[in-house]
């Protein structure tokens, strides 16, 4: 395995993208809760609601840090390890990524900095506007990344000139069905995750009888409501994509002839990647069913007015966020392995897309970043659980009481 740079590079990218996706999905899922929470708190000038926003916002930020880190590594990895993809499809595949970095990430990160720094320092409406920009750009970011990803799956809107793809139809690129359906699927999936995380954290505190300002009663209700609302759209967007399976991309045959394409697909055994994709598919379906069950149970309990009281249901909810995480990763593995052996369907194989590098370079790059990611992801999840359990009093955004610090006060003598 260590002798094969291609396998290492693929595994490295899969681990990077998978890690990135886990954190980004929670970012996308939590952002609307914080936005609407802050909107209501701002409208009503409600300090109690604002304390809840600080709590969820703290969790959002801890999670966001790792999302940025893995995103940076992923972007640079595309540049360092997958040069073949950019040599051929730089002008078509990388253009939406360029827009994503500039228009979405640039704005998102700047305004998130303002939001973090603006607590207690900014007017309440300006502060809310900052988070509105953060939420909007987070979703715009997801769209542009999926424009690039959808292009790999279903390449459209370009011509091959001198071995390079030249974009001829931006409209087709932006309205690629593979992009739009994936965007709908990924964002509703992220809302499932966000809803269940909010419900689970709220349930943990309700089960222990801890509910300052009623924030966790509101949390469990709104979390389950969003989950229940997203559970059918996510399967609708996902299911529609099955109809696209096996369709040849409209640009098929522009860089490789039909016989060459057939030969590449015959030579590809499938093997481990195919098995991983199938396992992912099954896990995704099972977890979705379980989520639908949890959401239905929650709705029934809500109707009979037992949602805030029945602890057995609270403890069940506490462990429910595993389900959307597994479903997201499984679904993502299913999508990405389904495209193999191609990086760009019917145009560029994964082997040709990789930078030529020696096995030593591949091993170095792989071990360096895999170890770093394992450590950082573990630390981030440990912190998330720790802050979620601590509750609003100990969150990272909680207003800190004035502490004496390391500068000792001069002793006051009383006579």
């Amino acid at each position, binding site marked *: 395995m260590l002798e094969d740079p291609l396998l290492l590079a693929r595994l490295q990218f899969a681990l990077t993208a998978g890690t990135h996706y886990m954190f980004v999905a929670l970012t996308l899922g939590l952002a609307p809760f914080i936005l609407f929470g802050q909107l209501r708190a701002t409208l009503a000038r409600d300090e109690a609601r604002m304390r809840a926003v600080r709590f969820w916002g703290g969790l959002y930020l801890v999670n966001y*840090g790792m999302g940025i880190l893995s995103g*940076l590594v992923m972007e640079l990895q595309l540049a*360092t390890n997958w040069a073949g993809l950019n040599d051929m499809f730089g002008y078509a595949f990388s253009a939406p990524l*360029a827009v994503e*970095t500039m228009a979405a990430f640039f704005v998102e990160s700047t305004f998130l900095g303002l939001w973090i720094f603006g607590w207690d320092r900014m007017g309440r409406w300006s502060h809310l506007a900052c988070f509105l920009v953060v939420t909007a750009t987070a979703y715009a970011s997801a769209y542009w990344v999926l424009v690039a990803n959808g292009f790999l799956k279903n390449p459209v809107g370009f011509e091959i000139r001198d071995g390079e793809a030249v974009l001829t139809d931006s409209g087709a690129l932006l309205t690629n069905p593979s992009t739009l359906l994936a965007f709908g699927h990924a964002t509703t999936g992220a809302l499932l995750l966000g809803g269940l995380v909010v419900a689970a954290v709220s349930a943990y505190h309700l089960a222990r009888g801890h509910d300052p300002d009623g924030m966790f009663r509101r949390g469990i209700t709104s979390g389950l409501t969003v989950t229940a609302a997203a559970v059918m759209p996510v399967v609708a967007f996902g299911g529609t994509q099955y109809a696209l399976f096996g369709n040849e991309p409209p640009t098929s045959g522009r860089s490789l002839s039909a016989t060459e394409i057939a030969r590449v697909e015959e030579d590809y055994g499938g093997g481990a990647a195919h098995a991983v994709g199938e396992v992912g598919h099954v896990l995704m379906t099972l977890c979705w069913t379980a989520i639908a069950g949890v959401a239905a149970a929650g709705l029934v309990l809500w109707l009979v007015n037992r949602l805030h009281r029945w602890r057995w249901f609270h403890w069940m909810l506490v462990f429910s966020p595993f389900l959307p995480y597994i479903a997201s990763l499984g679904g993502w593995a299913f999508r990405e392995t389904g495209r193999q052996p191609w990086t760009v369907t019917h145009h560029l194989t994964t082997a040709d897309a990789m930078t030529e590098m020696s096995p030593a370079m591949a091993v170095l790059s792989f071990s360096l970043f895999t170890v*770093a990611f394992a450590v950082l992801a573990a630390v981030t999840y440990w912190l998330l659980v720790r802050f979620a359990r601590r509750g609003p009093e100990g969150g990272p*955004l909680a207003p*800190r009481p004035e502490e004496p610090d390391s500068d000792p006060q001069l002793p006051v003598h009383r006579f």
Partner: protein
Amino acid sequence: MEIAAVVLLAGLVVGYFVLAGCDIGLGMLLPHLARTPGERRRLVSAVAPYFLGTEVWLVGAVGVVAGLFPALKHEVIVAQWPVFVAILAGWLWRDAGLWLRPRADNTVWRGTWDVAITAGSWTLALGWGLVVGGLLSGGRPLSPFALACAVTVVALFALRGAAFGAERLVPADRPEPAATAGGNAAESADVAAGATRHLARGAAMALLFTALTAAFSTGAPEGRPVAAAAVAAGLALVLGVTSGLWGPRLSRHTSALAMAAPPVAVALAVELPVVAAPQGTLTLVGYALAPLVPVMILGQVWLYRMLRQPAASSGFFA
């Protein structure tokens, strides 16, 4: 449209060097400037909200290179693969340190992330130095000239960090001068201000050494040596001004000019394969970006205006 793409890329890279120079340089000087736990906390909270707004310039630059100048990417990033992997690793650990350090309150945890922040900052500065050196020397990153360039760039990053620290490390709740008679509350800021002069002198020496290696050894700049010499002369002037008695006071502006010198030198002196993207790509990116440029500018200006105040001693990053 093509010239707009080139200006966009050059602006992003210069913006990254000038703005991120502040937080990278301050991270490099962390062990020197901040010794007590309170000082370290203040230093990290001085760097931390700022880095969110500065590293995006680099992310944007990489995006623009990948999307609009794939040939340039091949020449710069793929050709210097090991350096970019090191930069990426340094970046990762440094950011992780800034995010995670304030999350728990014990000596080992904070000490670990202090090491990550400092080592990551040094790795970034040295990595960018090697990239600049490699580009200026025409692809010989280990020649004496390229290494001298790298040392100069590292010194410039440190200078920029010290100039930034002199402003941001002043305590927000500064007590009356009389109350601090026993100890200096703004000690970190004073040390940083004092360091600007020494760092400017060090950078000037490194620049002189670079000029000597350019004149007397192999690996001297190819392309347009006159342009490189002109930028070096401008840099020498700026460093000379900063070395003087007024150095600490002027350093805020002079260090910014000095940080702009390396990317400007590369842009002017090296023949880079800048082939603009075809019309379709330029149009797509242009139309998608144009409406957001005012928002980007608003966010950046707003962030820097808010951060002009001294760093707070509490908050998410403290």
